[in-house]
C-alpha cells in the first residue's frame, strides 16, 4: 500500500482530504438508522436494540470522537506530505519538472464533445496540484481544524442529551425544549473539512468551484444549526445568498476562461498569460478584464469584502466553534487563496481594484468594530478587516505578505474565537461585553491566551502577527511611493493598524480587566474544561511562534515568510519588481509607523477602558457612534435597494395566481368567469367550452315534428342549390 504514495506523494494530501468523509458517511448511516428505529424504541425486537445501540434518546459522542480522529489523521498525513514536499524541493537531484510530475495528477471526469484529430475532447477534470502554498495552507487548515474539533467536543457537550433547552426561542409556556443534535454538528463539520481541503488541492477552476459551493452549503447548515431560532435561519439564508451573488461573478469568470481558452486548469491558464500581465493573445481586453473581475467577485463574496461583507457578522448566530473554523481560519481564507493562486490571471487594472476593495474593507470594518458590544461581532468585523489587509497586500504586489498574513491570522483569529467561546460558555451564554469585566481572575487560562491573540493581531513585535503585518505595511508603502496617485492605499492600512489595536485591546479590557459590571454573571463564571483550554494554549503557542525566524528581531527574517516567498509566482516579481524594491527600502519606516499607530491605539483603549470607568465610553451616544453601531446603514440600504423591490415583485407575480375573493366556489360549473387572474383565465377556457356545449344541447328538443321540419327544409334547400348550380348549362 505504501508504494501508492512513493511515486506520487501528493496522494498523501488526497488521502488527507478524503479521510474526513469516513465519519460523515458513518454518521449519516447511523443517524438514519437511529431515526428509522426511533418509533420502535420501546417495543423490543431488533429495531429497538439498534436504536439503543446507537444511543437511544440522546446522541452518542462517538461521532464526535470519530470526526476528531479523522481530522487528526488528516493533520498527520498533511504534515508528512509537507515534510516530503520540502524535502523534494531542496533535493538537488530533482528538476522542477520532475517535482511537478510527482505532485500533480489529474483525470477526465466528464468529456464534452468528441475527440478531434488535433486535440482530445474538452473535459471537466478532477485533479490535484500541490505546491508550497497548498502544502502550507493544507497543513494549517488540518491542524487548526483538529484543535477546533477538540474544542467543539467540549463546547457542544450539552447537545449530547435528550433534552436541550434553547433560551432564545420562546414558545407559550417558557423556552423551547428539543432533542440534542450532537452527531449532526460533527457531520456538518466533517463535510466542511472535506470540502475545504478539496478546494485547496484542486488544480482546475471547476473543482475549486465545486469545493467553493460545498463550503458555502456547509456554512449554511452550520450557521443555521439552531434551526428553531429565526435569527439563525435568517443569517444562514443571508450568508448563502450573498455568497451566491459572488459566485455568479465566479461563474462568469469560469465561463469566459472555458470558452476562450478551452481549459479550466489553472497552470494551463497561467501558461497562456504573458508575465507582465498584458492581455493574452486570442482574447479581447475587455473580456480579459471581465474574467479577472468575475473571479475576484467570487472572492469578494466568499471573503466578505466590501460590498458583500454584510453576511459575516450575522453569521455569528452559529455556534462559536463554527465561527472559529469557518469564518476566521478557513472558508473566508478560500477567497484570498484563490486570488493568490490565480494571481497571474488578473490584469493590472483588476489588481488595482482588488487593492482598493481591500483598503475600503479594512477601514470600514475596523471603524464598525470599535463600537460593537457583542464579543463575537467585534471578532467578526476584525476578521473582515484583516481579510481586507490580505486583499490589499495581494493587490499591491505583496503576494508573500498577503498569504503569510493569511496563515498567521488563521492561528490568532481561531485562538480569539475559541477564547470567546470559552468566555461565553463560562458565563453561561452571555455575549455582551458591557456585562463582563474582571474575568481574568476567574478564567486565567482563557484570559492570558486571548491576550497573546490580541497582541498578535495588533502587531506587537516578536509575535507572529508582527511579521506579516509589517510586510503588508511595507508593501503598501512601497506601492504608494512608486504610485503617488494611490496614496489612499498607503494611508488607510497604516491608520487602521491603530484602529485594530484600539478595538482589540478594548475587547480585552472590557472582558478581562477592571471590575465586573454584572455581579451575578461574574459569580457564576468558571474556567472551561481541559478539552477547551488545551486548544487555546496550543493556538497561543502558534500565534507566538509561527512567524519566528533567525534573527527573531528582524521582521524580514521569518522562516515561514521565506518558505512562502520561494513559492511566489514569477508574475509577481515581473510586474511589481520596482514596488517591491521600494518596499524593501522603506521597510523600517513602514514598521515604525505601524508600531506607532498600534501604540496610539493601545493608549487610547487603556485610557478609555482602564484608566477611567468603562461605562462612560460604553454609554456614549454621538451621531458618529450611532452610524458605526448601525454598521454604516449597509443592511438598511441593501434592504431598501434590493430586498424590498424583490419582495414587491414577488407579491405582484403571486397576485396573478391568487383566487378572486368574491362569489367563488370550488365548483367550476357555478363559478363566474374571471379572466383577471391566472387561475381564472385558464378555467375560463373550460368554462366557455362548457357553455357552448350547453347552448348546443338546446337544439336537441326531442320533438319529432321539429326534426321532420328540419329534414324537409334541408331537402328543399338542397334542391334549390342543385337547380341553381345546374341552371347555366
Amino acid at each position, binding site marked *: 500500500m505504501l508504494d501508492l504514495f512513493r511515486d506520487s506523494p501528493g496522494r498523501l494530501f488526497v488521502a488527507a482530504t478524503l479521510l474526513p468523509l469516513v465519519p460523515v458517511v458513518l454518521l449519516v448511516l447511523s443517524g438514519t438508522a437511529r431515526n428509522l428505529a426511533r418509533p420502535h424504541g420501546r417495543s423490543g425486537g431488533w429495531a429497538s436494540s439498534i436504536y439503543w445501540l446507537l444511543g437511544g434518546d440522546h446522541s452518542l459522542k462517538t461521532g464526535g470522537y470519530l470526526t476528531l480522529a479523522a481530522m487528526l489523521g488528516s493533520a498527520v498525513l498533511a504534515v508528512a506530505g509537507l515534510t516530503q514536499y520540502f524535502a523534494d524541493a531542496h533535493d538537488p537531484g530533482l528538476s522542477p519538472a520532475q517535482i511537478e510530475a510527482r505532485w500533480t495528477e489529474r483525470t477526465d471526469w466528464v468529456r464534452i464533445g468528441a475527440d478531434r484529430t488535433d486535440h482530445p475532447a474538452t473535459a471537466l477534470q478532477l485533479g490535484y496540484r500541490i505546491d508550497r502554498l497548498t502544502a502550507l495552507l493544507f497543513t494549517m487548515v488540518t491542524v487548526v481544524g483538529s484543535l477546533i474539533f477538540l474544542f467543539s467536543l467540549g463546547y457542544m457537550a450539552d447537545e449530547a442529551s435528550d433534552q436541550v433547552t434553547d433560551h432564545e426561542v420562546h414558545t407559550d409556556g417558557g423556552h423551547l425544549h428539543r432533542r440534542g443534535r450532537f452527531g449532526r454538528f460533527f457531520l456538518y463539520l466533517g463535510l466542511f473539512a472535506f470540502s475545504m481541503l478539496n478546494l485547496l488541492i484542486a488544480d482546475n477552476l471547476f473543482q475549486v468551484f465545486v469545493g467553493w459551493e460545498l463550503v458555502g452549503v456547509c456554512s449554511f447548515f452550520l450557521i443555521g444549526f439552531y434551526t428553531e431560532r429565526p435569527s439563525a435561519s435568517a443569517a444562514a439564508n443571508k450568508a448563502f445568498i450573498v455568497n451566491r451573488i459572488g459566485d455568479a461573478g465566479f461563474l462568469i469568470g469560469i465561463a469566459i476562461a472555458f470558452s476562450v481558452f478551452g481549459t479550466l486548469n489553472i497552470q494551463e491558464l497561467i501558461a497562456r498569460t504573458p508575465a507582465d500581465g498584458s492581455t493574452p493573445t486570442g482574447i479581447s481586453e475587455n473580456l480579459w478584464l471581465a474574467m479577472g473581475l468575475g473571479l475576484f467577485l467570487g472572492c469578494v463574496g466568499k471573503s466578505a469584502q466590501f460590498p458583500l461583507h454584510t453576511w459575516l457578522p450575522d453569521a455569528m448566530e452559529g455556534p462559536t466553534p463554527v465561527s472559529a473554523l469557518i469564518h476566521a481560519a478557513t472558508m473566508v481564507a478560500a477567497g484570498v487563496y484563490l486570488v493568490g493562486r490565480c494571481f497571474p490571471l488578473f490584469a493590472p487594472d483588476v489588481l488595482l481594484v482588488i487593492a482598493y476593495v481591500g483598503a475600503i474593507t479594512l477601514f470600514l470594518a475596523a471603524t464598525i468594530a470599535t463600537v460593537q458590544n457583542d464579543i463575537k461581532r467585534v471578532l467578526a468585523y476584525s476578521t473582515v478587516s484583516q481579510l481586507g489587509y490580505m486583499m490589499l497586500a495581494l493587490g499591491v504586489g505583496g503576494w508573500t505578505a498577503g498569504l503569510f498574513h493569511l496563515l498567521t491570522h488563521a492561528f490568532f483569529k481561531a485562538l480569539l474565537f475559541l477564547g470567546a467561546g470559552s468566555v461565553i460558555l463560562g458565563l453561561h451564554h452571555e455575549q455582551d461585553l458591557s456585562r463582563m469585566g474582571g474575568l481574568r481572575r476567574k478564567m486565567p487560562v482563557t484570559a492570558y491566551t486571548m491576550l497573546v491573540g490580541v497582541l498578535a493581531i495588533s502587531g506587537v513585535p516578536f509575535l507572529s502577527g508582527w511579521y506579516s503585518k509589517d510586510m503588508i505595511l511595507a508593501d503598501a508603502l512601497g506601492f504608494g511611493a512608486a504610485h503617488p496617485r494611490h496614496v489612499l492605499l498607503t494611508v488607510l492600512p497604516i491608520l487602521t493598524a491603530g484602529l485594530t489595536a484600539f478595538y482589540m485591546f478594548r475587547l480585552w479590557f472590557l472582558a478581562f480587566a477592571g471590575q465586573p459590571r454584572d455581579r451575578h454573571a461574574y459569580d457564576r463564571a468558571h474556567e472551561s474544561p481541559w478539552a477547551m483550554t488545551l486548544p487555546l494554549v496550543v493556538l497561543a503557542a502558534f500565534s507566538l511562534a509561527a512567524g519566528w525566524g533567525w534573527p527573531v528581531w528582524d521582521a524580514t527574517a521569518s522562516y515561514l515568510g521565506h518558505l512562502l516567498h520561494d513559492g511566489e509566482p514569477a508574475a509577481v516579481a515581473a510586474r511589481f519588481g520596482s514596488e517591491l524594491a521600494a518596499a524593501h527600502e522603506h521597510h523600517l519606516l513602514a514598521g515604525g509607523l505601524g508600531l506607532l499607530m498600534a501604540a496610539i491605539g493601545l493608549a487610547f483603549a487603556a485610557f478609555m477602558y482602564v484608566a477611567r470607568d468603562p461605562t462612560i465610553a460604553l454609554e456614549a451616544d454621538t451621531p458618529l457612534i450611532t452610524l458605526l453601531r448601525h454598521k454604516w446603514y449597509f443592511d438598511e440600504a441593501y434592504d431598501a435597494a434590493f430586498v424590498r423591490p424583490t419582495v414587491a415583485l414577488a407579491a405582484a407575480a403571486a397576485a396573478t395566481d391568487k383566487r378572486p375573493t368574491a362569489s367563488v366556489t370550488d365548483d367550476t360549473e357555478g363559478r363566474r368567469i374571471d379572466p383577471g387572474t391566472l387561475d381564472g383565465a385558464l378555467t375560463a377556457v373550460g368554462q366557455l367550452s362548457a357553455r357552448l356545449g350547453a347552448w348546443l*344541447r*338546446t*337544439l*336537441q*328538443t*326531442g*320533438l*319529432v*315534428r321539429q326534426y*321532420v*321540419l328540419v329534414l*324537409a327544409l334541408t331537402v*328543399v334547400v338542397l334542391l334549390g342549390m342543385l337547380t341553381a348550380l345546374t341552371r347555366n348549362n
Partner: protein
Amino acid sequence: MTDLGLTPFLTLSAFLFACGILCFAAKRNAIGILMGVELVLNAANINFVACARFVPSLRLEGQVFAVLVIVLAAAEAAVALAIFLNFYNNHATVDVDEGTELKG
C-alpha cells in the same frame, strides 16, 4: 289536354308537394303524418307521369317509375304503420309530441 304543356302539371305537382310537406310537418297525429307522406309521394308520381307525357325521350320511363313509386309507397306505409303501432304501445297515444326521449 295535349296543348296544355308541361308547366301546369309541374306546378300542380309542386303545390301538392308543398301541401304534403306542410301536412306532415304540422300534424300532431301520427296517421296525419302518414297522409302527408302519401301526398308527397303522389305529387312525385304526377311529376313523373307529366314528364313522361311531355318529354319525348322519357315516354315509357316515367310511367314505369310511377308504378314503382306506388308499390314503394304501399310498402313504406306498412312499415310506418308498424312503427306507429309500436309507438302507441309505448306511449298509449299517437300524439308524436309525446315522444321526447331523445331530448338532449
